[in-house]
C-alpha cells in the first residue's frame, strides 16, 4: 500500500520535471506520423531551427527580466522599431554591420530607460513597459510612415538572414552562440547568480548588499538590446520591416519562458527551459502549417498550450514547496 503511494508520487514528480519534454516528444511523434515525408526531412529540421531564431533571441533576454521577477512588455515593439530603423539606415547607405549596431545600441538604451524608470521610481514594470511600448510604436510609425519598409533594401542587408553554410542557416549558428552565452551568464557568472538571488528574494538580496536596482536595470538593458538584435535579424530574414513586425513576439516570449519554467523541475526561468519552450512553440507552428491547418485553429491550439503550460508550472512549483 505504502509502496503504491510512493510510486504514484514519483510518477507525478517525473511528470512535473519532464512533462514538457514529453509534450515536445508527443508533438514531434504526432506530426512525424501524420506527414513523415515533409515533417521529418532534414530540410525541415534546418528550417525549424531558422524559424526558432527570432523568438529565441527575444526570449533569451526576456528570461533575464523574468529571473529578476519583473516584466518587460515592450520587447516586441522594440524589435519592430529596431527592424524598421535598421532597414531605413540600410536604404540610406549605412553598411549592414553599422545599421545593426546602431539599432542594437538604441534598443539597449530603451531597455535601460525602462529599467531606470522602474527601479528609480519603484513603479510596476508591467505598466511602465506597456506605456513605453506605445511610445516606441509611435516612433516606429513616424520613422516608417506607417508602411512596410521594403523598397530599395540592399541585398547585403538580407545576407545574414538568408545565407546558409551548407544546409545550415547562418541564423542558426547565431542562435546557438547566443544560447551558449546566455546559458553561461545565468549559470556561471556572478551576474547571473545575482539575478536569481534578486528574483528569489529581493529584500534578502538588498540586505546582503546586492545593488538590486542596478542589476534589474542591467537585465532590462540586455533584454532591450537582444530585442533590438532580433528585430534586425527579422528584417534581414524577410527582406522587409513592418512597423508591427515584432509585436507578436512579446506574448510568445513570455509563453516560452513559462513553458521553460516547467522544464528540469527548476520552477524558475532558465535558459535551457526557454530553449525547449521556443522549440515546442516553433515545432507546433511548423507542423500545423505543414498540415495546412487554418491559422485560426493554430491560434487556438498555441493559446491552449500556453494555458496548459502556465497551469502545469503552478502545479510543479507547488510540488516543490
Amino acid at each position, binding site marked *: 500500500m505504502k509502496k503504491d503511494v510512493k510510486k504514484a508520487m514519483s510518477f507525478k514528480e517525473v511528470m512535473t520535471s519532464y512533462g514538457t519534454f514529453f509534450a515536445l516528444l508527443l508533438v514531434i511523434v504526432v506530426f512525424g506520423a501524420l506527414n513523415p515525408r515533409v515533417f521529418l526531412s532534414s530540410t525541415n529540421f534546418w528550417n525549424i531551427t531558422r524559424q526558432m531564431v527570432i523568438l529565441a533571441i527575444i526570449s533569451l533576454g526576456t528570461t533575464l527580466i523574468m529571473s529578476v521577477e519583473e516584466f518587460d512588455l515592450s520587447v516586441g515593439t522594440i524589435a519592430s522599431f529596431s527592424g524598421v530603423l535598421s532597414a531605413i539606415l540600410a536604404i540610406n547607405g549605412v553598411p549592414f554591420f553599422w545599421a545593426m549596431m546602431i539599432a542594437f545600441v538604441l534598443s539597449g538604451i530603451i531597455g535601460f530607460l525602462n529599467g531606470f524608470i522602474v527601479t528609480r521610481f519603484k513603479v510596476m514594470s508591467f505598466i511602465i513597459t506597456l506605456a513605453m511600448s506605445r511610445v516606441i510604436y509611435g516612433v516606429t510609425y513616424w520613422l516608417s510612415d506607417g508602411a512596410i519598409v521594403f523598397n530599395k533594401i540592399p541585398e547585403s542587408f538580407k545576407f545574414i538572414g538568408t545565407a546558409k553554410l551548407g544546409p545550415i542557416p547562418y541564423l542558426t549558428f547565431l542562435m546557438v552562440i547566443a544560447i551558449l552565452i546566455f546559458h553561461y551568464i545565468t549559470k556561471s*557568472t556572478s551576474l547571473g*547568480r545575482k539575478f536569481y*538571488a534578486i528574483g*528569489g*528574494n529581493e529584500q534578502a*538580496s*538588498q540586505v*546582503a*548588499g*546586492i545593488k538590486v536596482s542596478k542589476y534589474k536595470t542591467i537585465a532590462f538593458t540586455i533584454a532591450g538590446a537582444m530585442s533590438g538584435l532580433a528585430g534586425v535579424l527579422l528584417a534581414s530574414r524577410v527582406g522587409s520591416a513592418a512597423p508591427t513586425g515584432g509585436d507578436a513576439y512579446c506574448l510568445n516570449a513570455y509563453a516560452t519562458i513559462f513553458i521553460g519554467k516547467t522544464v528540469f523541475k527548476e520552477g524558475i526561468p532558465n535558459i535551457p527551459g526557454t530553449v525547449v519552450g521556443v522549440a515546442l512553440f516553433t515545432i507546433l507552428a511548423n507542423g500545423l502549417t505543414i498540415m495546412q491547418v487554418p491559422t485560426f485553429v493554430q491560434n487556438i491550439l498555441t493559446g491552449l498550450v500556453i494555458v496548459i503550460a502556465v497551469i502545469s508550472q503552478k502545479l510543479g512549483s507547488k510540488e516543490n514547496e
Partner: protein
Amino acid sequence: MIIETKHLSKRFGNFYALEDINFAVQEGEIHGLVGENGAGKSTLIKILTGVYHLTNGEIFVSGEKANIQTPSDSRRLGISVIHQDRNIVPAFNGVENVYLGLDVLKRHITSVDFATMKANVQKVMVQYQIDIPLDKMARDLTPPQKTMLEIVRAVMTNCKLLILDEPTASLTDKESELLFALIKKLNAKGTAILYVSHRLEEIFQLTNRITVFKNGKLVKTVETKGIDSDGLIRLMTDNWTSTNERHGQEIKGEPIYSIEHVSSADGMAKDVSFASHAGEIMGLFGLGGSGRTETLEAIYGYKPLKSGKIFFKGKEIKNPTPSKSIQSGIVLIHEDRRGHSLVMSREIKDNVVLSTIDSYVEKGFFNATKERDNVNTKIKELEIKTTGPEQRTSELSGGNQQKVVFARALMSVPKVFLCDEPTQAVDVMTRKEIHNLLRKCADKGSAVVYVTSDLKEMLEVADTITIIANGKTWERLENRGLTSKQVLSYCYQKR
C-alpha cells in the same frame, strides 16, 4: 461577566502557549492585560476573536457558553478588536471602511444607499463626539484618526467588549490622550474594554483591574488601585540574575562603532545613540515597538535615515547603504530570516556567498572551485547539517538556516555585527553555538550589537546593556549582577 474563560489552554505541537487560563472581564470595566513578549497575551486575543481555536477549556460570553470558530462568530457575539497594525482599506473612505463586513444599505437592488449609511455613521460619531472626515480616503488619515475610525466601526455593531492591542504604539503622546478620552467615553456608555499594552503608565491611567500573564500562565488578576508598577513588574517576570561570565572585565578604549542621535524616516527610532567597543557584546534591549529593529535597519542602510551620525573607526559613514556597510565591515543579521535574510529557493552556496560573490570573479571568470571550497569550509566550521553546498536552503532546519546566515556574514570578515533576534526560532544547541560564535568574534576584536526580546538570553550574553524605549536610548548598564527586574523597570518607567 462579559467574558469568561474556564481552564482554557492552547497548545502548538508540544508547547503550551496558554495553560489553564481562568480569566474574566466584568461588565463596565477597563481591564488591563500585561506580560512580557511571549507570555500569551496575543494568543488569548486571537482565541477570543476566532483566529485560533482553543485546545481545551470553555469560553462564556455574558454567561452563556460560546463557540467561537471564526472572526465573524466573535463579532456577532459583540467582541471587537483593534490591532496595532490597523485593519483598514486604504483606498476606501470612512463610511466604506466602517461598513466593511456589515451589510450595506440599499435603496433598491442595484443602488447602495450611501446617504443613509453616512448619516448612520455620523450619528454614532456625534454620540461619541468623534470628529474625523468621512469623505477622505483612509490612507490620507492620520494614525489616530485611523484608530478612531476602527473604534467607530466597532461601536456600529453592538460591541460589548472592545479589545485594544497596543493601540498607542505609533501614536504621539497627544494623540494617545485623545484616544484615552474616547476609551473612557466608550466605557462610560457601557462597553467593557480589554486593554493590552507594554506601557505601564497607560495601564495605570486607564484600567480598573489588571491581569498579569507569564509564560503562558495567568499569574494574578489585581485591582489597579492595590498595586504599583514595581509590584506589577515583579509579577510579570521571573527574576534572573546576570550569568555573563565575563562581566568582570572592563570595556576599554575608544568605541569602534558608534551612532549619535539617530532617527529613522518611519519615525520609530527617534533619538538613538550608542557606542560599541571591540571585544564587547553590546546588548540593545527594549520592548516590542521600541524602535530596535528600525534603528538597526536604518544605520545599516536598509531603510532611510532621517538624521543622526554614524561613526566607524573614527570616520563618519554618510548615507549608508547595505553594500557600503558590508564593504566597510558591518553586517546585519536581520530578524526576519525568511523574508529578509535568505533566498530560500536557492542553494546553500548561493546564500553563503551572496554578499561576497564579486570576489570570486578572477580575470572575468567565476572561480567555482574556490567558491565550493570556501562554502565547504564554512559548513564545517559552523557545523551546518546539510547534504552539501548544493542543497536547497528551504530544506534545512531553522537553526541550520540561521547558521547559513552567519556563514554569509562571516564571509565578508566583518568588524561589526548588528544582530537582531539572531536566535529567534532556533534550537537550544544552535543558540548556544551562535552565542559562542559571537563571543569568539568579539574576542578577536569585533564589536557586536545584540538585540533580543528574551531578557534571560540578554543577561547571559551581553557585556553591557543599553535600554531603548519609545524610540530613544536611555541608560547604559554594565551587565554585572544585573537582574531582569532592574532592566525591565528601566524599560517600563514613564518616559
